[in-house]
């Protein structure tokens, strides 16, 4: 058993909030460059050039990549031999979010009451915290601020088993096509396949944490990822919906066993500012 003081979690979250909103992950930069070189239309190239330049300017100025610095989503992988001391986990994460968003001049985008828009909490808390208990005594924090524009285009379906693989591909491609330019393509698509209603959504969000373009270790899931990506890019939506070959940069599918009667499918849409950062305590 290892004691971990929750003040370390607050410090780590504050730094992750500040940095993840400014530094575009290297895997995303690589994917954007590859897309830029592949595109044939002048407008698509112009958009991708602006995004690459944006990452440079954010790095140089310390300004956030995007004004929507998101809801703070924090995945905590908590070792079962780790013992948190000094306070409550949610409160510690919230304290980190409060400090990080204030010190980093980040936008506070959370309302206390979803039906009353005048109830901004003023410090971007509470964070959305997902805890998973894992072997060992480590504590790993994944920080992924989530913007509203792309989150709004996400969806969940309870497909019939007979709809199968083709039904999965069709549902996702149709959703991305209908969303068009609104979620800020080129996108990263997190897909949760199987599980139950709520687990599929969580798997879809967790899929976004995977390094961009790293295929699933399971060959048939990796093949599904390739086919979904091809179908989505065939929509022609392109960067910012203005047409082109790159509607999505990557598709990540996380699969889980499910009920014989069910085929849950969740799609979490992520914009090109695929911000994610991890730290181990």
């Amino acid at each position, binding site marked *: 058993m290892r004691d971990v003081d929750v003040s370390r979690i607050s410090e780590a979250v504050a730094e992750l909030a500040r940095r993840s909103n400014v530094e575009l992950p290297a895997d995303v930069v690589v994917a954007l460059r590859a897309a830029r070189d592949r595109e044939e239309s*002048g*407008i698509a*190239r*112009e*958009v991708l*050039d*602006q*995004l690459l*330049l*944006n*990452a440079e*300017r*954010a790095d140089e*100025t*310390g*300004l*956030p*990549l*995007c*004004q*929507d*610095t998101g809801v703070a989503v924090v995945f905590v992988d908590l070792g079962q031999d780790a013992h948190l001391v000094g306070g409550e986990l949610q409160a510690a994460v919230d304290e980190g979010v409060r400090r990080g968003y204030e010190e980093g*001049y*980040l*936008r*506070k985008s959370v309302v206390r009451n979803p039906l009353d*828009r005048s109830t*901004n909490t003023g410090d971007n808390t509470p964070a959305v915290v997902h805890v998973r208990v894992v072997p060992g005594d480590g504590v790993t924090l994944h920080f992924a601020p989530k913007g509203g*524009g792309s989150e*709004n285009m996400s969806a969940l379906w309870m497909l019939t088993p007979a709809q199968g693989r083709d039904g999965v591909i069709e549902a996702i491609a149709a959703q991305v*096509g209908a969303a*068009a*330019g*609104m979620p*800020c393509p080129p996108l990263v698509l997190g897909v949760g396949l199987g599980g139950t209603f709520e687990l599929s959504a969580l798997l879809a969000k967790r899929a976004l944490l995977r390094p961009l373009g790293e295929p699933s270790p399971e060959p048939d899931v990796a093949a599904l990822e390739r086919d979904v990506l091809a179908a989505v890019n065939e*929509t*022609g*939506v*392109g960067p*910012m*919906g*203005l*047409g082109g070959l790159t509607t999505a940069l990557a598709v990540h599918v996380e699969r889980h066993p499910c009920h014989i009667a069910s085929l849950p499918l969740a799609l979490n849409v992520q*914009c*090109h*500012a695929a911000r994610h950062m991890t730290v181990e305590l």
Partner: protein
Amino acid sequence: MTGTDVIDLGLPLTEKSACSLRAGDVIHLNGPLYTARDAAHQRLMALIEAGEELPIPLEGQVIYYSGPTPAPPGRPIGAAGPTTSYRMDDFAPELYRRGLRGTIGKGNRSAHVRQALRRFGGVYFVAVGGAGALLADRVVAAEVVAYPELGPEAIRRLQVEQFPVIVGYDCVGGTAFVGEKPLT
């Protein structure tokens, strides 16, 4: 930034300068524009319905749908990319009718907005969503002119230089968006 030809355009706009643009044109804007998004639009519409004066001029002006991050010390504004425009679709036609010449945001818009552009001689610009640092870099001055209590949703007057946008919809019914047809 690329081989694409860029048109330099001064603000505010005139009917002539707005209507000279065509969907797909790559533009650099220079001059003043106003930020307003969901909450500010609700307030502007309430004033219009009450027959009261608006806190900003509309004639020839361009409204930018953006809610920036707080300005760090030494900078006029924080990250300032566009928000999704469709949420303002119910408000835009009335503002264009009252002389507004342009709006800037991201994503597609309703047929009503496109018809208003054609009827009143307006234009809709797309700024690159998520290019918040780049766009902020092209803002040389910013001041809150109305509703400071709305924080990021306050109306700000920005002075921009070489502010990059693309014409999404023009005043003759053209569109730059995939899967949409020109208005007939």
